[in-house]
């Protein structure tokens, strides 16, 4: 079967290394997560070889970078098709893949093998201090590298859209990607005043994950739904605009829920509480959207796994980002929960549901085509993939529940009592060990799910010859 019957433009193939490398980094993220899960219980595990702060930096930075690889892969795959023309420069896309992969690997090796203070000194942090802030720990050269890669990437996909067809899907995706790159520039701004530093730090962190990343997520979801359901594009795109409108209308001022206790003025207590209460709405509409489109489908697409990821990402994003976000977003609640394990619970399910799952959704849809297997992997491979889906998703539900339990007890012991009666941080931690054990076991479940998921790729090769689904001619259009 020639690849021409599977996807429309040869240049869509550049997405493949991005997806493959994203999943490799995902494995690393989970392994370091498990190490941290154990360090929460056995405090000196791997100390001083791998202190907790290093493991955490690797865990969170791998997450961010694999999602960025996933988003770029998604854009390289769907933008040529949406724009109805070849990618402006496939060569540039491949070159940038290697630049970004090398920068990512070097950064992680730097974290692991060089003491952080030495790394900071070596990489110019005394000239322009940007390091040592949560999620923005990357050395200056890495941050510059991210900007270079992002600019080349935006130029490449931007030229493709400009010269080609503009659809709601690729315009919203482009807006999200441009926003992502522009907001990252605040990573270079590190004011001397801690409150001001924190204030603009959220321009990167919040306006990414509760702002422009939602645009990226929604447009990828819209694309996959158009492809697998055959529902009229006009209908899908109307939903897409409603979702992204709700995302930005609630999410921009929703930033205020991070400004309660960092030295910003009191007006944010109201603005942050009110607008972040609206933040679950776009995710709720995404659930309606995914289920509606799939119920109203006009064709039976053979890739059932991709449809499951599409529904799954909407539901889990609503639960993780929407419900678990709302749980602690009101200022009077957040006063007690801020900076405790509730935040960790929310962070885990939100990132998995909204962003890890949307990347696995587009990978599920695109990879069988990119690998020349067909419209969909074999049934056996899809069953294996669904095992991965359910094991990872259920494990993440349990990780979230156990961290929530830990957070509630933590707040009860350390935050609610008056000074003098409240338990100290470390004594409180000792009381949470049961939750941490259960969280770790759930984490092992997640790893098993991830292994099933990865094995499904192998299985689709093994069984491709004898159990190949028949491609639908309509799909090539």
């Amino acid at each position, binding site marked *: 079967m020639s690849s021409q019957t599977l996807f429309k433009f040869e240049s869509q193939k550049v997405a493949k290394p991005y997806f493959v490398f994203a999943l490799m980094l995902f494995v690393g993220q989970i392994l370091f997560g498990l190490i941290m899960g154990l360090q929460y219980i056995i405090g000196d595990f791997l100390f*001083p070889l791998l202190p907790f*702060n290093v493991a955490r930096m690797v865990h969170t930075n791998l997450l961010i970078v694999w999602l960025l690889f996933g988003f770029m892969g998604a854009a390289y795959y769907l933008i040529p098709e949406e724009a109805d023309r070849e990618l402006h420069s496939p060569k540039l896309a491949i070159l940038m893949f290697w630049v970004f992969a090398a920068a990512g690997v070097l950064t992680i090796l730097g974290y692991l093998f060089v003491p952080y203070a030495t790394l900071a000194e070596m990489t110019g942090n005394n000239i322009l201090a940007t390091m040592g*802030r949560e999620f923005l720990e990357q050395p200056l050269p890495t941050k510059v590298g991210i900007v270079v890669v992002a600019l080349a990437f935006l130029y490449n996909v931007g030229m493709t859209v400009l010269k080609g067809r503009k659809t709601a899907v690729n315009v919203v995706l482009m807006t999200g990607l441009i926003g992502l790159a522009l907001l990252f520039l605040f990573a270079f701004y590190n004011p001397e005043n*801690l409150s001001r530093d*924190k204030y603009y730090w959220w321009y990167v962190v919040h306006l990414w994950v509760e702002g422009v990343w939602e645009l990226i997520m929604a447009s990828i979801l819209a694309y996959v739904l158009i492809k697998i359901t055959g529902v009229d594009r006009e209908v899908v795109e109307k939903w897409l*605009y409603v979702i992204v409108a709700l995302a930005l209308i609630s999410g921009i001022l929703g930033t205020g829920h991070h400004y309660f206790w960092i030295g910003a003025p009191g007006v944010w207590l109201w603005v942050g509480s009110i607008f972040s209460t609206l933040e679950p709405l776009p995710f709720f509409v995404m659930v309606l959207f995914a289920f509606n489109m799939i119920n109203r489908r006009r064709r039976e697409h053979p890739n059932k796994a991709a449809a499951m990821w599409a529904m799954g990402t909407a539901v889990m994003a609503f639960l993780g980002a929407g419900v678990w976000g709302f749980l602690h977003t009101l200022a009077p609640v957040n006063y007690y929960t801020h900076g405790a394990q509730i*935040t960790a619970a929310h962070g885990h399910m939100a990132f998995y549901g909204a962003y890890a799952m949307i990347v696995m959704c587009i990978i599920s849809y695109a990879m069988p085509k990119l690998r020349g297997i067909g419209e969909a992997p074999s049934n056996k491979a899809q069953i294996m993939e669904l095992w991965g889906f359910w094991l990872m998703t259920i494990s993440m539900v349990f990780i979230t529940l156990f961290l929530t339990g830990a957070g509630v007890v933590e707040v009860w012991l350390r935050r609610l009592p008056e*000074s003098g009666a409240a338990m*100290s941080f470390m004594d409180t931690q000792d009381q949470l060990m049961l939750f941490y054990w259960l969280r770790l076991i759930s984490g092992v479940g997640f790893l098993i799910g991830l292994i099933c998921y990865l094995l499904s790729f192998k299985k689709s090769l093994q069984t491709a010859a004898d159990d190949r689904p028949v491609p639908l001619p309509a799909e090539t259009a």
Partner: protein
Amino acid sequence: MSETFTKGMARNIYYGGSLFFILVFLALAYHTEKTIPERTNADQLTEAVIRGKHIYESNNCSGCHSLLGEGAYFAPELGNVFHRRGGEAGFKYFLPAWMKAQPTGVPGRRQMPQFNLTDQQLSDLTEFLEWTAKINTNDWPPNIEG
């Protein structure tokens, strides 16, 4: 969604709504900028405090600790550690001694690395955490334990 609500209308809400709230957001940023100097005692933001922040960042303290509730949740909150550990009288003695005693080496217990900071750096870090503890945080954290 009904036929009277068109894609064009949805698109206009997206563009118009986003633009409107971006403008409100920028206005609030202006207001915040105006209030930060007073709320953070910017007049006490000395060179030592600035160096102390740099030390806090260069050693990735936020990889384990939270500061005003942000960072990691593996080790105690440091936004009010000044008040918790000695205050005006004692904190400047407590912090250097504490940092020099790490790691404790107690088996199974969470360990803080030895950062080998100089006395000057420890003093700067102390100044930074004292300044931080005096930021007007709307009365957060709820109690001394952080």
